[in-house]
């Protein structure tokens, strides 16, 4: 991956001031933001340090742009060579802003045709989680199952590849991930009974080099004898034998989160989503490798190890969230770790070479399992909270299927404080599963699951020590927190709230230092970059959506023929926000 930066001098001097830890070392420049999670280790940490607890008070907006769309604005912009790239929710327009010119005018925009049928197939609003830059190209996914590569300088389409099939319930809101000459992509559709996969495309041509499914026989999963080895599970064909008959063929296992890469081990890590249908009675068994982390070689897709966080998931606990790669001291030993905040409420610190769980502690209130047994790697279940059509309406399960943390809200890690920063949700649910039939292109779910608050504050922004599995501090929020996190060497962390505040806090103490009301709820991820003038800037999208479209649709006002009631558990959310689509840039 080649990175360019015209503000290389500043970035270099910062790099010299404090040498980053090895896992972060491949970062070429802190002035730019070239991939969704900032770097291969998915740290969302920037070495920029002009904005500090002392200076942040004077942060103010310097520029805004309306994207002209109202879907949930998840994801983040990219900044490369004094150009900011913004992908909108459906219809997935790509804008390129010239940051070197006054008012940041557009250099170009790219408006692809996108099949509107995808609006019904995308489970949870028409979101897009962003683009990635490599080798002079901006690469991103259209919602209707295409990956496109656009010339970063001219906006011309270089290639377009069909990767997913809408008719099978596949959509593609995920941001691609690029390692060397491979573009890695996955599909959503855990609610549509897809047969989940990851594909490796050739960066130069867009040709599909390999396809690896996440479930099914070893030949499809690309689990080769001699290469594939799990820390806990024994036996072959696990992706097939842990399902009744051929239920794996519609078993879900989507990929819609953020990937990471360890160059030394040459392993790409990603989380796999939920099994389908939600009615677990229709798929007795572990249902591997749903709700799991998979480690693959990017060149040929071969599976090297896998670990399942939630065997026989009966709560929609996707493991789609990011796997952050950091070197940590755990129980007195230096480890090459992988840290993951699962929807199931546990934060895992694992060995990223083998898949061994070193530590797993609840980071929110959890009652479906009492703990993770480190000897077997399996959760110790609370049988009263297991669901399925035969169990009727199972009440008060914590956390909800929104997750203790949503995979849509990626964490940040600061090597300065050695803490993780995460947006969390304190909610519980009732879960009534029912028998359901698979009809291609329609949802394959079989569930009814109202939520309720488990705490008067339904959300928090927390700091987490992954060496010990303990919370360092938390900032309580009235509503669930649904934004990504940003950590900086200036020791300021950033996040946004559903009621539309963009906030900065002291990374060490958790004191909120600054906030600004950005016009719509925040479900996007903050970034920071160096402008053409050498100053540090911070950018964020405002535009509530994603699951909130389904949960509290009364914030919608764009359609006179679709008027919705508020959610019982968050009756006044729409009092503070409506839809939006705004790119904000802030500076001191």
């Amino acid at each position, binding site marked *: 991956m080649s990175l360019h930066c015209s503000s290389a001098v500043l970035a270099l001097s910062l790099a010299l001031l404090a040498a980053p830890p090895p896992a972060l070392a491949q970062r070429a420049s802190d002035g730019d933001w070239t991939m969704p999670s900032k770097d291969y280790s998915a740290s969302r940490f920037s070495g920029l340090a002009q904005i500090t607890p002392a200076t942040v008070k004077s942060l103010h907006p310097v520029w805004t742009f309306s994207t002209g769309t109202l879907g949930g604005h998840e994801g983040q912009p990219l900044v490369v060579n004094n150009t900011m790239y913004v992908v909108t929710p459906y219809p997935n327009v790509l804008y390129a802003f010239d940051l070197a010119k006054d008012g940041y005018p557009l250099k170009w925009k790219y408006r692809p045709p996108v099949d*509107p*049928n*995808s*609006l*019904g*197939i*995308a*489970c*949870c*609003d028409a979101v897009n989680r962003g683009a990635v830059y490599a080798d002079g190209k901006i690469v991103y996914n259209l919602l209707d199952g295409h990956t496109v590569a656009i010339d970063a300088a001219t906006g011309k389409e270089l290639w377009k590849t069909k990767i997913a099939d*809408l*008719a099978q319930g596949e959509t593609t809101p995920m941001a691609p991930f690029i390692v060397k000459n491979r573009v890695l992509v996955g599909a959503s559709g855990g*609610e549509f009974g897809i047969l989940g996969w990851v594909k490796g495309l050739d960066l130069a041509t867009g040709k599909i080099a390999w396809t690896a499914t996440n479930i099914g026989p070893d030949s499809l999963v690309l689990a080769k004898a001699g290469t594939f080895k799990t820390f806990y599970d024994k036996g072959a064909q696990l992706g097939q034998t842990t399902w009744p008959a051929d239920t794996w063929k519609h078993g879900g296992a989507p990929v819609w989160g953020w990937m990471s890469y360890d160059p030394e081990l040459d392993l790409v890590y990603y989380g796999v989503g939920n099994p389908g249908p939600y009615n677990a009675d229709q798929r007795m068994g572990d249902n591997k490798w749903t709700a799991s982390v998979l480690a693959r070689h990017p060149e040929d897709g071969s599976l090297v190890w896998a670990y399942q966080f939630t065997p026989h998931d009966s709560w929609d606990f996707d493991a789609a969230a990011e796997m952050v790669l950091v070197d940590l001291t755990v129980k007195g030993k230096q480890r090459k770790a992988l840290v993951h905040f699962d929807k199931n409420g546990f934060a895992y610190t694992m060995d990223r070479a083998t898949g061994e769980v070193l530590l797993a502690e609840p980071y929110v209130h959890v009652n479906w399992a009492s703990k993770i047994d480190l000897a077997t790697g399996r959760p110790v279940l609370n049988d009263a909270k297991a669901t399925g059509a035969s169990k009727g309406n199972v009440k008060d399960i914590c956390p909800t299927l929104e997750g203790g943390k949503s995979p849509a809200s990626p964490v940040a890690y600061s090597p300065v404080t050695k803490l993780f920063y995460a947006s969390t949700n304190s909610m519980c649910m009732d879960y009534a599963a*029912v028998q*359901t*039939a698979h*009809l*291609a*292109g*329609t*949802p*394959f*779910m079989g569930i*009814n699951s109202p939520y309720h608050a488990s705490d008067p504050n339904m959300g928090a922004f927390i700091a987490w020590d992954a060496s010990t599995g303990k919370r360092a501090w938390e900032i309580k929020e009235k509503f669930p927190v649904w934004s990504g996190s940003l950590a900086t060497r200036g020791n300021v962390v950033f996040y946004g709230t559903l009621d539309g505040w963009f906030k900065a806090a002291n990374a060490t103490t958790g004191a909120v230092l600054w906030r600004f009301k950005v016009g719509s709820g925040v479900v996007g991820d903050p970034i920071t970059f160096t402008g053409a003038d050498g100053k540090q800037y911070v950018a964020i999208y405002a535009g509530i959506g994603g699951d909130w*479209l*389904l949960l509290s*649709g*009364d914030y919608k006002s764009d*359609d*006179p*023929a*679709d*008027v*919705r*009631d*508020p959610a019982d558990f968050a009756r*006044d959310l*729409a*009092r503070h926000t409506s839809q939006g689509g705004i790119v904000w840039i802030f500076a001191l």
Partner: protein
Amino acid sequence: MRLFSSHARATLVLIAAVGIAGACREQSAVPPASTDTKASENALVISRHDDRVFAGGLMPPAERVVNTEAHNPKAAEEGAALFTSMNCDGCHGGGAVGAVGPNLTDGRWRYGGADADIFRSIAEGRPKGMPSFGGALQPAMIWRLVAYIKSLPPPKDAPTEAW
């Protein structure tokens, strides 16, 4: 069975469906707009040629199909079961209150709320993500879904939400 079909195929499927309901088929003048419930009660317009209306000032003839379930007292109840078994609730939410697909209980319609309009939404699909079910469901089943949707009472004061 693939429920996603091109518009052309959806139309063919619908004509086939009309064929099944052949007993109820009749020729007649087309009402000016399908949302005019009085004139088109229970009638499905399957072809109109607005571009030709001005030729002689007369509407061209078109076909209608009558709601075969209009007198079935259990139609709504059976439609409710279909709404779940055909996975409508996965997109429109339990009780059709809206999820990724629009709320069908708010008394407001993108494509018209006459029985025939709702039939057509279900049978042919709609462009922004509503699959066509005309190939998967008999017309009588679609009419039962229409009966169920029409049985859901719109809220009294939807326009205003106050805190």
